[in-house]
């Protein structure tokens, strides 16, 4: 069934179709409608789930950890400062190998106080052991929530579904809501081998000496590597059932592109539009949309960028005193595999719009240079 909905509601429908059993969340702009709709769906008994109102995001994740440990499919959603407040428990959820799924609506970090989009909030949680999936449409958001549980429960690692504030969260577009029967067939009930069970008691999270701590970390890393395999494996399976294909990266006209834009989120969607216009002018430009940040798709990135003569990474985020965060990731994957010059642009922080013209300006600047003469370039900032 097709329905025009906002991105936030696409998350709620995704969680509902995934038959989540426990939802614990604390409201924050621009995430509020996610839990608003879920609470209505639960109150109307259209979803058999426990909706837990909590006093903070830290508590929200704590409740999800408890629920997931007991074998329930747990869900939450947050943004920016809320995600930052969860930070300690993000490590806990991943370290305890709990397949929790969360939506994070990208909102720039304060101060200065803001509600608009950029990716610093989620990218700052890069090393917590959560998978991160960046979406460019409301349909992808709904589908990704369902896929996330499938992958998470196979490898026992949590997943963060990431989408831009307003340009997805509050944007209405047509979304196909798959039949519940199809989703049930694709995503069986969560059967957690290690769940809390009073009949078979265990203690979790106990003190671990240097003798064994590293081995637990190796297991997490291997689970993430396996997650990459599972994501690749699920793509055609999901497509067969639902007709839509989602890979780790989303290439657009990169095969013969001399210059490739590397982008993510809704900025990638606009980049695709810009590529069409630039191609019409005869410019050989392509776009590589980064969908999965963790586990990082090394092979796909190297493969898609192998023909490029120039690579432009546009970051809607920054690691102060270094590069944009996607630039670090992609450059690191290319090191030793490519000699192609890589340009890093910082654009659209704090919700500043990224227009097609933004990309035209970036391309025009890069055309004049053989290689970058700065570590990074700021786009469309006041002089």
């Amino acid at each position, binding site marked *: 069934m097709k329905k025009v909905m906002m991105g936030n509601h696409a998350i709620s429908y995704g969680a509902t179709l995934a038959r989540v059993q426990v939802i614990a969340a604390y409201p924050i702009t621009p995430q509020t409608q996610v839990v608003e709709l879920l609470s209505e769906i639960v109150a109307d008994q259209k979803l058999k789930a426990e909706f837990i109102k909590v006093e903070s995001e830290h508590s929200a994740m704590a409740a999800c950890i408890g629920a997931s440990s007991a074998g329930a499919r747990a869900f939450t959603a947050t943004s920016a400062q809320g995600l930052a407040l969860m930070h300690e428990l993000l490590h806990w959820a991943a370290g305890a190998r709990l397949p929790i799924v969360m939506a994070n609506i990208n909102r720039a970090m304060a101060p200065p106080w803001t509600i608009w989009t950029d990716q610093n909030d989620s990218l700052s949680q890069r090393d917590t052991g959560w998978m991160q999936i960046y979406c460019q449409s409301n349909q992808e958001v709904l589908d990704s929530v369902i896929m996330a549980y499938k992958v998470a429960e196979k490898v*026992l690692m949590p997943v963060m579904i990431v989408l831009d504030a307003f340009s997805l969260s509050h944007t209405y577009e047509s979304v196909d809501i798959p039949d519940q029967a199809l989703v049930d067939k694709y995503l069986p009930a969560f059967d957690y081998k*290690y769940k809390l069970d009073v009949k078979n*008691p*265990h203690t979790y*999270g106990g003190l671990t000496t240097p003798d064994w701590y590293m*081995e*637990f970390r190796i297991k997490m890393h291997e689970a993430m590597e396996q997650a990459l395999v599972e994501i690749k494996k699920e793509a055609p399976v999901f497509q067969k059932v639902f007709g839509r294909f989602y890979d780790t990266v989303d290439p657009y006209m990169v095969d013969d592109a001399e210059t490739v834009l590397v982008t993510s989120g809704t900025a990638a969607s606009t980049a695709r539009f810009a590529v069409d216009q630039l191609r019409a002018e005869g410019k050989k430009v392509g776009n590589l949309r980064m969908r999965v940040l963790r586990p990082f798709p090394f092979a796909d990135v190297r493969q898609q960028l192998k023909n490029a003569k120039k690579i432009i990474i546009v970051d809607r985020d920054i690691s102060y005193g270094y590069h944009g965060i996607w630039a670090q990731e992609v450059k690191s994957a290319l090191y030793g595999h490519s000699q192609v010059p890589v340009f890093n642009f910082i654009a659209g922080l704090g919700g500043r719009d990224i227009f097609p013209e933004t990309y035209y300006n970036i391309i025009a600047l890069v055309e004049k240079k053989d290689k970058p003469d700065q570590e990074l370039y700021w786009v469309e900032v006041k002089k």
Partner: protein
Amino acid sequence: MAKDRKKIDFKKMEELPPMVMSLRSMAANPTGSWRNLKPVIDLSQCIQCTICWKFCPDAAIDWIDGNPVINMDFCKGCGICAEECPKKCIEMIKEGK
């Protein structure tokens, strides 16, 4: 109980669960040896109010035949029971005395 108490020792990665979890109930892991003060209840004054039983953070007080009984396998000697006892009939005494 005794056979459950053998030390859990992993030899290989495959034996290790994915997350830190005990392979059986922690009842097999007595912690009473950590104690240097032990609670002693004067049952002649006890009014069976169950406050000590409720407050024990380690659930190391059992209720047997209507009276509190300290499980010395797990009591770490924190003294919360003695502090909370309304009749002050629990005394913390030095171990080994």
